């Protein structure tokens, strides 16, 4: 089987290179030298081109046990360092060999139109992520003990998640029904006078880089919740940022993701236009339209530290923004602890109040 993945090797000692979050350069594990991304990129430009040109091969179906669907989604590669066979998802673009630990990049996933436009490199390294997660668990009073202690925190992974960043302008034309109310006293009656207005507002709102995650594997709620990313660090894409981390390519294209971006843009536009209708006691949207003009999408890889835990048959995902450190997660509830705390607070308070008031 032809080699289709590249590891980045140190030009000095051929040791494996991984992307250093603190320095922003590619660092060698063995000799400690660090290299600029651009330098390594040029060095490997030819190699990548050659690798990308190779046609992909289907997974070998030894034994015929995999269903057609599953087989179609699997890819097999061979590790350039140790020759071991790596089987991964059809969207995996960067991974590490489970046998020799070498970080590897699959350039074919990023060839042609699949090449991301930009990337935000990881700023927080694994130890930062681990300690953030430990702190997150510590504060949670209702977390079952076995979850936190048995948790495989060290298995936390840094993943470049594929996102679509939408730029655009929305054009809103909204009709509201507004009322102004006056109340006063006339004789021995209370009179309420309500004036009804039709309020029309038109306007345009520009949006820049509204993110929508393009991977069906990543839950949208988690990805929304770790926003915002600091786009100031958005860099031109290069595979040299990937070693040491996992990366996926998108499996939901921009047309599919546009709907989710549109939903958010529409809500923002409606809110912005409604805010300009001031002085009304009530405002109700009757009709209107929000159209998206000039919509462009950029394909970007954004850094996320992730840990998926399976506990008592349910999946819990913890995600941390690899650039800003914002934590998001859902955790299981220990209801016994909940009720213990509930009565532990309420009963002494009852006793105290009883002494004071009774």
């Amino acid at each position, binding site marked *: 089987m032809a080699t289709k993945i590249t590891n980045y090797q140190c030009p000095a000692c051929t040791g494996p290179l991984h992307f250093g979050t603190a320095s922003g350069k590619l660092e060698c594990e063995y000799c400690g030298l660090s290299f600029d991304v651009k330098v390594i990129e040029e060095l490997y430009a030819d190699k990548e081109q050659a690798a990308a040109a190779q046609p992909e091969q289907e997974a070998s179906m030894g034994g015929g046990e995999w269903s057609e669907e599953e087989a179609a989604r699997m890819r097999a590669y061979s590790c350039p360092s140790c020759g071991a066979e790596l089987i991964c998802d059809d969207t995996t673009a960067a991974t590490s060999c489970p046998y020799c630990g070498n970080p590897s990049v699959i350039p074919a996933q990023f060839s042609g139109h699949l090449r991301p436009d930009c990337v935000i490199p990881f700023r927080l390294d694994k130890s930062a992520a681990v300690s953030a997660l430990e702190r997150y668990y510590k504060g949670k009073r209702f977390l079952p003990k076995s979850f936190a202690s048995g948790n495989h925190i060290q298995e936390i992974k840094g993943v470049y998640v594929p996102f679509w960043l939408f730029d655009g302008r929305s054009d809103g034309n909204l009709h509201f029904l507004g009322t102004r109310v006056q109340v006063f006293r*006339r004789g021995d009656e209370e009179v*309420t*006078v309500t004036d009804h207005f039709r309020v029309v507002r*038109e306007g345009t709102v520009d949006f*820049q880089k509204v993110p929508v995650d393009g991977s069906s594997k990543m839950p949208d709620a988690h990805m929304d*919740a770790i926003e915002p990313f600091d786009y100031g660090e958005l860099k031109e894409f290069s595979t040299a940022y990937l070693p040491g981390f996992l990366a996926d390519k998108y499996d939901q294209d921009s047309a599919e993701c546009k709907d989710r971006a549109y939903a958010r843009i529409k809500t923002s536009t409606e*809110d912005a236009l409604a805010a300009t209708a001031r002085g009304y006691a009530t405002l109700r949207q009757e009709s209107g339209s929000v159209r998206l003009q000039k919509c462009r999408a950029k394909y970007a890889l954004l850094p996320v530290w992730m840990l998926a835990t399976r506990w008592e048959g349910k999946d819990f995902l913890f995600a941390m923004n690899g650039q800003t450190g914002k934590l998001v997660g*859902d955790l299981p509830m220990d209801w016994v602890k909940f009720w213990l705390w509930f009565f532990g607070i309420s009963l002494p*308070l009852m006793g105290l109040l009883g002494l004071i008031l009774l």
Partner: protein
Amino acid sequence: MLLLLVLVFALPLPTLAAELDAVTDAAGLLTDTERGELNDRAEELAEQYQCAVYIVTLEDMEDMGGSDAYDLATAVYTEYDLGYGEEKSGLLLLLSMAERDYALIAYGYGNTAFTDYGKDVLLDEDVLPLLGEDAYYEGFSAYLDTAGEYLSLARDGKPFDVEPTPNYNETEGRSETGNHPQTDYSYKKTPSPKYDEGEFAIRLGAVILLPLLLAGGICLYWKRQMNTAVSARTADRYIPSDGFRLTGQQDTFLYRTETRRRIENHSSGGGHSGGTSVRSGGFSGRSGKF
């Protein structure tokens, strides 16, 4: 009415004596014994409570030149200089048999002892039912009994009136709606509990509910922190500072609606607010038919 009074003053009241006893029975409703006994009781009350109590019965008030029982009663009271002491305190019940009219008036301290509510109860519950059945001795006897009780209460500092104010209730530890003297009213100073029943229930409720609410609020807040993955609703943070441009606005007036609500006026008159309404002239009272 002024004219009538002038007339009454002008003409000496022919059918009554020069001076009035406590009980004057010109209509002949009572036997001599009965009249005597009632008279003695009335005089006793007057001495005991420094407030005179009178009964006057007439065959026909027209003979006296009166056409309104109330006015005639006040005229009689004034003309005959009725009333105890300097304040001329007293209560007068006047009956006119021909029309079956009555009038009950009070003056001086009588106004204090016999409140509007008290007079209503005295007449409606104790006296008028008996008079209506022509049981005159019994009616007058009840009149004197009730008058005596009211005077006693008044002299104790608590004239018989409608439901007392809340302050009164709390300090005494009782909740009642007017102490009717006909019932066996035994007011004992038993050691009352610190709070009455209603207030205790409120305090107990607060002691139980407030900590529950507080604990619930705190625990729910902690619970919410356990699940922070929430989908985003808006894209507000992706709007650049000059990104919003309003290109058109139009506010068109459509129509006007008006709703009216009558404000409930809590009427101050009309019975159950306690006290006595004293009219000009110094008398309070009412009249009617028996």
